[in-house]
């Protein structure tokens, strides 16, 4: 990348575009960022297409056969691939539909016309191609995205946190929402959001996925203490992370 500005492209797949918007919400930094890179493709904000990208940011998850073709094509043409936001990282909230049989879901939405619009289980980008770095969160965490962006421009690996939201929450000395009688997924959810929900008096909904090596049984136990059945506890843990919670997780102990 030396000498020339890195060529950067943004692509969107299945998602709500909140991550795209969050990225445009760095109004104060946007012009500085533009100084450091060449944005060569960004459908939501500009016309035009390019053949090669040093860094490809992928927003949204994989949920149709066409998505699969497209992501392969991008992977072939990019240097570093970064998944932005929980839809891209784990399938995100879209993956909630994986909890139901797909026939049922499609019929529920389109009735008799269900065959008009094929849909496959919602999957993370990494299920299809190799992803170099991930910025988690729904929407993707703004501070973490900036960190990754700056790290890549410097040519170094970003530092992606792998400990619980509680850590950031305690560093900020928030009142723990458990003390207010709410439940919270902060203890098992990956930090990086600067505990934005507990900081605003709301419980952590687990939108950044579980930390690696979680104690899933312990987590269910913890939620039971707050009055949730095992089933309800798992449902809550899965809201943004059906794929991650459902897959075989290495047990923490």
């Amino acid at each position, binding site marked *: 990348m030396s000498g020339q500005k890195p060529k950067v492209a943004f692509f*969107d*797949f*299945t*998602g*709500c*575009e*909140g*991550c*795209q*918007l*969050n990225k*445009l*919400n760095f*109004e*104060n930094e946007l*012009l500085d960022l*533009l100084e450091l890179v060449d*944005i060569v493709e*960004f*459908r*939501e*904000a*500009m*016309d*035009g297409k390019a053949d090669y990208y040093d860094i490809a940011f992928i927003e949204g998850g994989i*949920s*149709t056969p*066409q*998505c699969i073709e497209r992501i392969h094509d991008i992977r072939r043409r990019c240097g570093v691939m970064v998944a932005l936001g929980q839809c891209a990282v784990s399938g*995100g*909230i*879209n993956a*909630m*539909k994986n909890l*139901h049989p797909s026939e*049922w*879901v*499609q*019929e*529920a*939405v*389109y*009735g008799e*016309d269900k065959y*008009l*619009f094929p*849909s496959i289980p919602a999957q993370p980008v990494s299920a299809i191609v190799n992803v170099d770095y991930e910025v988690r969160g*729904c*929407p993707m965490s703004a501070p973490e995205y900036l960190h990754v962006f700056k790290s890549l421009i410097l040519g170094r690996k970003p530092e992606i946190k792998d400990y619980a939201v509680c850590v950031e929450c305690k560093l900020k000395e928030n009142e723990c929402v458990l003390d207010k009688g709410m439940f919270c997924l902060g203890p098992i959810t990956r930090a990086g959001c600067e505990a*934005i*929900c507990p*900081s*605003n*008096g*709301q419980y952590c*909904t687990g939108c950044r996925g579980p930390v690696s090596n979680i104690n899933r049984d312990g987590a269910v136990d913890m939620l039971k203490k707050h009055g949730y059945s095992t089933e*309800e506890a798992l*449902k*809550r843990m899965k*809201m943004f992370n059906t794929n991650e919670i459902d897959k075989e997780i290495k047990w923490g102990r």
Partner: protein
Amino acid sequence: MSTDLNINVHHVTRVEGHGNIVVDMKKGNLNKAQLEIVEPPRFFEAMLKGRNFHEVAIITSRICGICSLGHQMTSLKATEAALGLEVSEQTEILRKILIHGSTFQSNILHALFLATPDFFKVGSVFPLVKTNKAVVEAALRLKRLANDIGDVISGRAVHPISCVPGGFTKLPSEDDLRTLRDKIVTQGLPDAELAIDALASVAHEIPPFERETEYISVYSDKEYALYDGDICSSDTGLYPVEKYLEVTNEFVVDHSSSKHARFNRDSYMVGALARFNNSYALLKPKAKDVAAKLGLEAPNYNPYMNTVAQVVEVVHCVEDTLEMIDYLLDTGIKQEKPNQEPTRYGRGIATTEVPRGILFHDYTYNRQGMIDKANCIIPTGQNLANIDDDMKKLVPEIIAEGKDAITRKLEMLVRAYDPCISCSVHMLDVEFIE
């Protein structure tokens, strides 16, 4: 002059979500002129089934990141209606400020960053950073300011955090509100003026096209309705929100993963221009001045003018927000907890004006406070038929201009509606099959 025309714009740029424009004309016969929605369906209503009322707005906010706030508000209102949860006056005012912030931010994003490049004849806002830096910077500051409103009041502008059923989990401090107010006055107003002047200087680039249609929006006689009100049709008047299914009449068409809608005519329009046409009288004075300056009069039948109506609304939102902040500062922020004790379980329907138009959420809760049935009707879906009808009228009118110009004007037309395709992909009245 050729009488054959074949246009296929794959994935229209500078819009939210994925759509293609397809025009097919043979021997002067227009076989096809339509916007095909290819956004992957996401099945939200199915996902809501069995979810606790605390979670519902968190999920529905993810229908669309651009209008996440509007979805959240509508969702909260529907849940509150279904569960009999009363909210305080303070909560309502804070929510109205939020809606204003969201309309403000989305309208700015669309009018100044996505649509304006067309008037300057460039492919994106990026070249304008060089040629019109002061305006871009002002626009960026405006967008930041709009987001600040969301940050201060709900913790985050995209997928807001602290607004929950029954109220707020955290209230802004009076200091926060004062800072916000100062910023709006000292920075927001001058920046808005700069942006309006820039737009006025290119307003002649807006294509002079007209097609009268039915305009549908939320209406209230107390204010320029965004947060709440009745359904208003420019053709047939007011309807209570409970009648929303009779108004929208959604139907599946094979070229769109999003459903279409129609009421009194073949199609209707929602969004800034519809609101402007229906509620012009209730705009704040400064907003009316700006409308006059930009050549927008009610009623206006040019869909391209939707962008201008958005800018007028920005001015209205800023003015109204200042008034509401002043009111809150006068009365003082009361520390109150969200009211989350349901008094009933059943059906609740709510409507809100989100930036792209009228939005409906309709939930039925069971006795455990879980969703049994859900339906969301999104503005862009309601506009799709109208866009197709506009194209059908427009293409023959400009056929002499050649394929490139036609393509450009069609793209501009689609963009003028500020379609939010990701959220339009949903379903209608679902019967959940047990």
